[in-house]
């Protein structure tokens, strides 16, 4: 028995040792490392859920919604949870596809992250955010998903506000669209990064982009306790979201609609046309009243994740890139509408305002004859007539002589370049600074521009002048290209006489956007101030208090006298009655509202003409400027001018509708809203 006793004693020692080891280790785990495990436990057990703030609506000048919210039941999935499942969540997705009535492959594609080589349908947002798979879920299905979380781990259904557009396609490019926040944007933001709930959307274009921070509001935060399956079992902390502010714009929904319809008709009536733009500015304030671009699209396609087909269509050149606003990003040669700048330059440079000018059928510019359209010859005329009848040769001569005074092909040390400088003063060749993204500055070609261009390209050209184009199959063309390269190499910096002549009538390399042209006209016929147009009028809190009224900055005053401006305005006031637009405005009650304007027909090599009409009304004391452009629309008088006429008719309520009743004016008394609409506490809006 002694041996047993000894061995039992050994066992006793072992047991005591074991108890000691367990005790020490428990001390270590619970007392020494305890705090650390508390932190880990909190992290595994709690999720911070962002409650997205209701995005503020965008209203027109009378408080009518241009963009508002509607609620929608959105089913989304948590990709990080799916990735942890052995089958990558396929089983859950299969069940989901059957309750949602969607194809499994479709869902699978929708949730994969976009990246190189993966095009839509895919999820462009952050992988941290739940990926919406369906935003038209019926409540019964949503309830089913929420109640059977064990069958649908990582799937949530919640009510979300999605954007809706009461005006349909109206002002699509102007309003812009929302897209899920990208991973990069998310990481740049302070604070919460992981565990987003709901889709965090950011404005990607238009007003949604420009006023994103005001519209977005402040998301709320909910810290919830979850179980192993991710099911919420308790709410630990809750901070309510602050809804976004309302953006009140100076847009008038009715005028916008009129412009949209007018552009549609213009496009229909000119079969070659590929794009069009229309803009209406308030001359007195510099605010935008309507802004439309063609081709267009229905912004509702963005809601709840865009389908592959729709997305490709929006981006493709075949559909004419409907996302691009031609008003601010389309650049076109302005043609004769540009003559307001040229006349201003001539007068500022010393040409007498009331002098007489020769209008021959053709004018010889550096050995080349530049003619009037249709060979028109008017003899000695005033600048007034030159504008009304749009006599090109008057301007060719002026442009050519300016060019000669600057030294011609061998420029003097100090050049004056009156016409380009005046164009710049009118705001051409620079961004208007409008509160919209994606603006184009256009182009005002000058001697310096030409030289810079040559500096950038001469090395290549001079090399080609030596080596030629051996890769070209056609020997004749290769030889021609080589000659051209040689010419460019040797004298590509020279600003030629024909370029100066073309400039004077808004041709050649001159490129302007419709908005630039509209604000130039507004400056001319208004108070002479060139403004940076604004679409946003005020930012207002949901309770109706005004955060800020958005001012319209004055960029500069036109460097011409009021007398000159008056002279030009009066000349243009006769264009619709006696000038180039007389045909388009035949029968228009000028005694009721007198219209002024200037047609433009810009030639584009290899394409049909660009049709312009820049107009203002009332001609005596202009309140509005309206510009319409139809690319490949033909003569300005034939396509753009009638389109503008329709806009005036709508604004002033001229003519009769189809059922014979008088048309109600879109802007009563021809005045835009002068006071901000008032948002009441309950959310209703009154003018």
């Amino acid at each position, binding site marked *: *028995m002694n*041996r*047993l*006793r000894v*061995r*039992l*004693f050994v*066992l*006793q020692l*072992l*047991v*005591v040792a*074991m*108890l000691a*080891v*367990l*005790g020490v*280790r*428990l*001390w270590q*785990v*619970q*007392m020494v*490392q*305890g*705090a*650390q*495990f*508390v932190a*880990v*436990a*909190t992290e*595994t*057990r709690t999720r911070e859920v962002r409650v997205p703030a209701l995005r503020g609506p965008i209203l027109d000048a009378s408080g009518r919604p241009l963009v508002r919210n509607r609620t929608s039941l959105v089913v989304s999935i948590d990709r990080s949870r799916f990735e*942890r499942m052995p089958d990558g969540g396929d089983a859950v997705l299969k069940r989901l596809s059957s309750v949602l009535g969607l194809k499994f492959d479709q869902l699978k594609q929708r949730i994969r992250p976009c990246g190189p080589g993966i095009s839509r349908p895919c999820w462009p947002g952050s992988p941290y955010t739940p990926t919406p798979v369906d935003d038209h879920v019926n409540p019964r299905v949503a309830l089913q998903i929420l109640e059977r979380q064990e069958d649908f781990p990582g799937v949530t259904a919640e009510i979300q506000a999605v954007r809706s557009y009461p005006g349909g396609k109206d002002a699509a490019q102007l309003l812009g669209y929302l897209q899920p926040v990208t991973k990069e944007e998310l990481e740049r933001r302070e604070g919460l990064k992981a565990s987003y709930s709901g889709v965090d959307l950011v404005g990607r274009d238009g007003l949604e982009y420009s006023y994103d921070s005001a519209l977005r509001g402040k998301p709320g935060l909910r810290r919830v*306790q*979850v*179980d*192993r*399956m991710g099911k919420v*079992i308790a709410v630990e902390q809750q901070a309510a979201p602050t809804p976004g502010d309302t953006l009140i714009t100076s847009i008038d929904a009715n005028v916008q609609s009129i412009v949209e319809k007018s552009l549609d008709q213009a496009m229909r009536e000119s079969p070659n046309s590929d794009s069009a733009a229309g803009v209406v500015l308030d001359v007195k304030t510099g605010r935008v009243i309507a802004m439309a671009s063609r081709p267009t699209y229905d912004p509702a396609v963005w809601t709840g994740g865009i389908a592959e087909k729709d997305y490709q269509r929006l981006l493709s050149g075949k559909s004419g890139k409907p996302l691009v606003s031609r008003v601010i990003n389309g650049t076109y040669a302005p043609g004769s509408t540009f003559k307001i700048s040229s006349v201003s330059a001539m007068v500022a440079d010393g040409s007498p305002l009331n002098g007489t000018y020769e209008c021959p059928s053709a004018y010889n510019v550096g050995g080349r004859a530049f003619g009037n359209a249709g060979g028109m010859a008017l003899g000695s005329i005033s600048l007034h007539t030159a504008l009304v009848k749009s006599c090109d040769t008057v301007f060719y001569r002026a442009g050519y002589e300016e060019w000669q005074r600057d030294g011609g092909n061998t420029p003097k040390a100090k050049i004056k370049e009156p016409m380009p400088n005046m164009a710049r003063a009118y705001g051409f060749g620079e961004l208007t600074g409008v509160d919209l993204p994606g603006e184009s500055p256009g182009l005002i070609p000058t001697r310096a521009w030409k030289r810079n261009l040559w500096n950038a390209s001469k090395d290549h050209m001079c090399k080609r002048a030596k080596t030629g184009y051996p890769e070209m199959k056609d020997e004749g063309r290769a030889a021609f290209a080589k000659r051209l390269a040689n010419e460019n190499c040797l004298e590509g910096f020279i600003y030629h006489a024909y370029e100066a002549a073309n400039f004077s009538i808004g041709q050649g390399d001159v490129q302007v956007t419709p908005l630039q042209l509209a604000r130039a006209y507004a400056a001319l016929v208004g108070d002479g101030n060139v403004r940076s147009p604004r679409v946003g009028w005020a930012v207002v809190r949901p309770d109706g208090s005004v955060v800020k009224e958005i001012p319209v900055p004055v960029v500069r005053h036109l460097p011409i006298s009021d007398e000159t401006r008056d002279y030009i305005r009066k000349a243009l006031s006769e264009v619709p009655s006696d000038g180039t637009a007389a045909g388009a405005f035949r029968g228009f009650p000028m005694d009721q509202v007198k219209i002024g304007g200037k047609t433009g027909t810009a030639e584009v090599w290899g394409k049909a003409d660009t049709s312009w009409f820049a107009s203002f009304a009332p001609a005596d004391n202009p309140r509005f400027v309206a510009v319409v452009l139809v690319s490949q629309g033909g003569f300005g008088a034939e396509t753009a001018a009638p389109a503008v006429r329709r806009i005036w008719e709508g604004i002033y309520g001229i003519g009769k509708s189809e059922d014979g009743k008088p048309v109600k004016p879109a802007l009563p008394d021809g005045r835009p809203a002068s006071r901000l609409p008032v948002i009441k506490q309950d959310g209703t809006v009154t003018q």
Partner: protein
Amino acid sequence: MPDAVRVRRRSLARRAVGQGAPVWRMDGLLLAAVIALSVIGTLLVWSSTRTWVSNEPTGLVKKHVLNLCIGLALYSVVAVSDYRWLRRYAPFLYGVAIMGLLLVITPMGSTINGHHSWIMLGGGFAVQPAELAKPALIVFMARLLVRSAEGKDRPRVVDLALCLAAAGVAASLVMLEPDLGTTMVLVVITGGIIVFAGVRKRWIVASVLLAAAGGLAVWSLGLMKPYQVARFTALINPASDPRGVGYNSTQALVAIGSGELFGKGLFHGGQTTGRFVPEQHTDFIFTVAGEEFGFVGTVTVVALLGVVLLRGLRIARMCEDRFGALVAAGIVTWMAFQTLVNVGMTIGIMPITGVPLPFVSYGGTATFANMIAVGILQAIHVRERALSA
């Protein structure tokens, strides 16, 4: 055996509670520790299962209490009886246990949680023969090793061989289920009993070396299933696979560690409520104690288990009867090993194995087996006192 003859003449009632009845001579501390562990265990099972079915938070704990009651009844019966009948019926008990293990392999067996270890009895009740094999094997081996050694100090080689064969059959059957944890328990019990039976030291050293070599061979020859290898890897480095095998280990540590000194209070453990630790009411019950009762709670549980083990050892030491001492030593070895493995795996010093924590974990058959074992200890104690009195 004149004593037994005299006792038998007394009425049953007097024998049970009368003066000098076994019930008054039991080891009170041992019983108190077991009851305390059972009460704590009940609370922990309750806490870890109350969120399973929202409208019936006490569903499983009720079953646990029923199991405990049955267990206590078994304990009482065993404790008051003369343990020496165990010696007589040991072969029969062993045979029944082996039959049970064989039944598990037949289509009558059922699989729960990947272990083909159960025999369904209907009505939601099931037995796990492997648990009952533990006491049966102890008793049977003790008998084999004692019969030749009466008067002598060392068991015969033939009995040792029989003993190893008996253990081998039981362990192999359990291994087939497969239940690595219980197999290990059986192996350790066998080793312990043989050591206590008095084999030479050199044999002990030799077999320890052999076992080590065997273990190394199993490891290096890749005889273990991948998940078993993974469990050992996870022990060394729980971060190696935090979502897979390491998950259990990590979550167990997080639950226990986050309890700190006093714990978060019963039903207030977030990790427990959120069911982050798998198998929490059975194999990982200790994590509930860790999270909700803190260091104070875990040390109490370990200390109570220590009381059971040390009282068991005392009973073994004091027993003049070699069979009784061997059985008691075997039971202590069994309980100690399970305590070490179960608590150890939850605090990251043992690999993850499916071994329940004695008296605390949920599980009917295990509870019965544990209670029977404590009953045997008490019976030995009572008898030892009766003999020495």
